[in-house]
């Protein structure tokens, strides 16, 4: 990776990867197939294999492939970190510093060390999950509602964890009844509602995008879905950013002392 010193080379590489993905997606269209392609069939995950009573769907397989990609990539890049960073390290440092700045602004703490692992992992995971559908053979795991629900549950449980860790049990529990005790049901309802809101925002955005691309494939497979696919790159990254931002806001609400 040290060989890529010219930014133009990296841009060309990225353009090549995107072009390959687009071309392979175009070739994936069945030529002269007898039956009509079905949108619902295209979107919903199918069972790949079963382990006892468990049905392993394609979502799980894709998620594990993505985790392998992320893990091996992080290991390869993290193995030789240099004080004068190369291009890839520089880019990743920029992303991590942006996440740190977000935590500092929205959570309102100076020391980001305990928040960075979970917030950064969510950002990288969702960003990769939204983009991985562009690669041939892989499908994005986020249009399956179980994946966003799992991540929203992670946020749901990490908010009281960070609140208790930074403020103590009593101080955290007291903020539920802070102005008057009548606020207690409202606070609990809002905690549950925002979990579902996080789930449906991520799920609905990526799902709608996938459905539009599938319908365009059915209507006119050649070159027409390409602008929509390019737009889906933007949407996926924006949704990852918004999920991270909202996670920081929710954690910040639990961490900050009552101002």
């Amino acid at each position, binding site marked *: 990776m040290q060989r890529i010193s010219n930014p133009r080379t990296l841009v060309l590489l990225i353009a090549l990867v995107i072009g390959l993905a687009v071309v392979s997606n175009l070739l994936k269209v069945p030529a002269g197939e007898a039956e009509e392609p079905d949108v*619902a069939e295209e979107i919903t995950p199918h069972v790949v294999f079963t382990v006892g009573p468990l049905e392993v769907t394609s979502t799980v397989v894709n998620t594990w492939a993505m985790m392998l990609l992320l893990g091996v990539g992080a290991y390869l890049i993290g193995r030789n970190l240099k004080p004068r960073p190369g291009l890839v390290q520089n880019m990743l440092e920029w992303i991590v510093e942006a996440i740190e700045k*977000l935590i500092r*602004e*929205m959570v309102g703490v100076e020391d980001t060390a305990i928040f960075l692992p979970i917030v950064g992992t969510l950002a990288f995971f969702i960003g990769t999950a939204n983009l991985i559908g562009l690669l041939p053979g892989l499908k994005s795991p986020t249009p399956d509602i179980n994946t966003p629900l799992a991540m929203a549950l992670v946020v749901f449980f990490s908010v009281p964890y960070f609140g208790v860790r930074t403020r103590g049990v009593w101080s955290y529990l007291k903020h539920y009844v802070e102005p008057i005790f009548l606020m207690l049901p409202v606070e609990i309802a809002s905690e549950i509602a925002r979990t579902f*809101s996080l789930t*449906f*925002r991520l*799920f*609905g*955005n990526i*799902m*709608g995008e996938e*459905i539009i691309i599938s319908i365009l494939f059915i209507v006119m497979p050649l070159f027409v879905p390409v602008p929509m696919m390019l737009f889906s790159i933007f949407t996926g990254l924006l949704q990852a*950013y*918004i999920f991270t*931002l*909202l996670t920081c*806001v929710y954690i910040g609400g639990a961490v900050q002392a009552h101002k």
Partner: protein
Amino acid sequence: MDWNNLPWDKIFIIVTVLITGPGVIVGIVVPAIGQMIVASAGLKAIARQPEAGDRINTIVLLSLAMLESLAIYVLAVILILIFANPMLKYIVGVE
């Protein structure tokens, strides 16, 4: 198709599909007006105080995400109505 005496299951499906069109219109237009107000207020704030642009940007994006989720709820409901209607099995009969 015999349009004069349609069976109930076909009427149910036709009504379901027809109702999604106005549903999409209402569900897109109302959050769009809200997002419009937020975006214009954010632009005015940044024009008045450009040095606070970063912070205003974050808050505007946050509000836009909140409003966006309303449109997404409509999308989810309509997807359920079209592709996985839970009432269909009572009308058409359990398969």
